[in-house]
């Protein structure tokens, strides 16, 4: 049996006075890929923000590698080994491609990922290493964002809406790379609008609806109708 890497218990979170998560609990084992599905505004990105420490207004308990990290701030959590590839990529426009990647490795964790490993994975980035990050195409920017996340050599990577704003062919390319990205036993949480693609890429899934878990487990254990019922709240 593989070990539990991340454990979330009774997590509640607020944006200002609005409660957006209502008591979520789940566990993620070492090496698993978990897909988070749910309609817009269901709370998927909020959950990721809670895990990586960007959202402070929360109660409940988040443990990572048997350490309670609920109250940790984002800059400490990344040093513990959780990286977020944020929705909308959020590259630093003043930094070149290479500088964005180097900054990803700022916390100095040891592991398989280095600048040259990222360039092997995405050769186009090596060509454009000195270009301003925002001069790249959407797909290339997404590669930078993924590479930047990997550079911290995380134990858990949170991938938020990788396909947002990208052309279908580019999305396919990125997902084809996914096994390489999370190949070395890396644990991942994947937020994705495209349910079919999300379920195909994962061993576990959680469907979130209005801040609550409406269904969860192995994708194969449920029929398509059961999952879409959970998704749409029927």
């Amino acid at each position, binding site marked *: 049996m593989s070990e539990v890497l991340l454990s979330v218990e009774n997590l509640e979170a607020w944006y200002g006075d609005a409660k957006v998560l209502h008591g979520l609990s789940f566990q993620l084992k070492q090496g698993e890929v978990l897909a988070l599905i749910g309609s817009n505004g269901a709370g998927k990105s909020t959950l990721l923000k809670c895990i*990586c*420490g*960007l959202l402070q207004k929360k109660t409940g308990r988040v443990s990572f590698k048997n350490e309670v990290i609920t109250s940790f*701030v*984002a*800059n*400490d959590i*990344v*040093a513990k080994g959780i*990286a*977020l590839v*944020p929705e909308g990529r*959020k590259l*630093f*426009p*003043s*930094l070149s491609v290479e*500088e964005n990647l*180097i*900054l*990803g490795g*700022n*916390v100095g964790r040891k592991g398989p990922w280095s600048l040259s490993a990222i360039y092997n994975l995405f050769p186009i980035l090596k060509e454009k290493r000195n270009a*301003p990050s*925002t*001069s790249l195409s959407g797909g290339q920017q997404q590669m930078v964002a993924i590479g*930047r996340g990997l550079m*911290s050599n995380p134990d858990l990577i949170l991938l938020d809406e990788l396909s947002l704003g990208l052309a279908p062919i580019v999305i396919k390319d990125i997902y084809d790379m996914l096994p390489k990205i999370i190949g070395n036993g890396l644990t991942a949480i994947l937020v994705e609008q495209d349910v079919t693609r999300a379920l195909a890429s994962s061993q576990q899934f959680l469907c979130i609806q209005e801040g609550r878990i409406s269904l969860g487990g192995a994708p194969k254990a449920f029929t398509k109708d059961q999952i879409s019922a959970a998704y749409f709240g029927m």
Partner: protein
Amino acid sequence: MIWVNIIIQGILVGGLYALFAAGLSLIFGVMRLVNIAHGDFIVAAAFLAWVVVQATGLNPLFSLIVVVPLAMAFGYALQKWILNRTLGKDILPPLLVTFGLSIILQNGLLAVFTADSRKLNAGVVETASFPLLPDVAIGYLPLLQFIVAVAVIWGLQYLFYNTALGRAFRATSDDSETALLMGLDQRKVYAWAMALCMGVVAIAGVFLGVRSNFDPFMGPGRLIFGFEAVIIGGLGNLWGTLIGGVILGVSQAIGAQINPGWQVLAGHLVFLLVLAIRPKGLFPRIEG
């Protein structure tokens, strides 16, 4: 030839104004903070150098070895303990807190050092000069001051674009939340930026004190000169700031030549003129 001389001396003084401005420019670039007490810190650094010179008998230019690290440590602490608490969407708190600091500094210096004006004596370098053209002599001190200004701006530019700290500055300035995901604590990044700013302030203060008399109430004037250099040169462009300082220095020199009462006024008017015709400054940063 008299005008050539005036312009050259103005350019050299512009180096000092660029030193006043460089710290302001840096802080604004990293955290959008405008420190109203900036000029008072420059004057305080001059007084600190004066104390060091009195205590050790060092040449003021060598007192920088002591004054710069002290100023940097102070800047780090100031940002960490006070200014970081004022940062946010509202511009009032940082503005009013630094305004309060300005009053505290001026009156603190007055209480300790009285209103007497003082000067740092750097010895022969102050009066020595070499002839460049007939009737145009370049003083070693103004030249040194200008070279130091260029070196400081080059150094800041290098640091900004070629070091890990500079990367942290730019990333935090772009998007402090995403920078957190890279393990960059903005409060620490800001504290380092203020430390660096105060290091430059210390250099500016020592050159101010060597060049002319100073007293506790000179700060606001230095803030305004620095600010004008920043705006004339264009926000977010350090080399522009140097040129802004030079333009200010030359304007003042020409104004003073026409009428001694117009020296400072001429600089202000050129600043307002630039604001009227090129509100983004002469060399604004090209947006990426």
